[in-house]
């Protein structure tokens, strides 16, 4: 992998983080879940296209490892679940856990079935 490709991945990572910050700023309650589901869909499409030989390795790394990887956040998701837990908002905790995971799995399966 060339230095240019690595720089492109890092730039995509920066872009993904900025996009996440903007979405969470606009949608403070649901933004983390939204970016996690959208980013998972992007990664699923990348994996499906790369698996089918329709996307080059550099493009897959830029979109998958850079953009989707940085757009989504595990630590932010855990922080939201922990916050719901701490404030004893049971329904919030269930929604924070279930909604992004189930939606993420659904979009992944859809992308893999549709594109492979």
């Amino acid at each position, binding site marked *: 992998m060339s230095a240019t490709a690595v720089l492109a991945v890092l730039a995509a990572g920066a872009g993904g983080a900025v996009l996440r910050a903007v979405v969470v700023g606009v949608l403070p309650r649901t933004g983390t879940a939204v970016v996690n589901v959208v980013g998972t869909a992007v990664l699923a499409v990348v994996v499906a296209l790369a698996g089918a030989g329709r996307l080059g390795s550099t493009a897959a790394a830029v979109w998958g490892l850079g953009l989707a990887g940085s757009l989504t956040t595990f630590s932010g998701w855990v922080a939201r679940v922990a916050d719901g837990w701490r404030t004893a908002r049971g329904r919030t905790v269930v929604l924070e856990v279930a909604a992004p995971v189930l939606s*993420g799995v659904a979009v*992944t399966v859809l992308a893999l079935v549709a594109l492979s």
Partner: protein
Amino acid sequence: MDIARPDRAGRAPTRRDLVGVAAGGAVGTALRLAAAAPLPLALAGLGPWRLLAVNTTGSLALGALASLAARSPRLAVALPTLATGLLGGLTTFSSMIVAAGRLGHDLGLVAPDSARMTGPGLVLAAAYVGGSLVLGLLAHAAGTRLGRTTGRHVGRSGGTR
């Protein structure tokens, strides 16, 4: 805007915040790339166990950072860069979901050419996501406690203001 500061939720990010987030996001992505080495970059993933380690470590760091920042205005200014950018970019939800789906293949329990998620694959995927969440929550709690303890010591010596 910040994932580590729910009290600041809803505040639109400033241009300065976004520059910090971009810089942190690039560094977080670089650290994730480094954790993947020597796996080929094109795989767009760390493998399930390295990913688990990276996500758990990031959750611990975010817990510590958020509780330290609650005591230190100077550190709070750096939250967009360190929390939203660096730790948000280092940890990743999308790879966890995809890694969970491929775990059955990776462990040889599901035929490599099988596109269908079978019983063992489903159980493994659910266990991986559930285990990641539990470990992440434990790490976040441990980080929060660590940050509080450290913040108290540093605050007592007057180093945070």
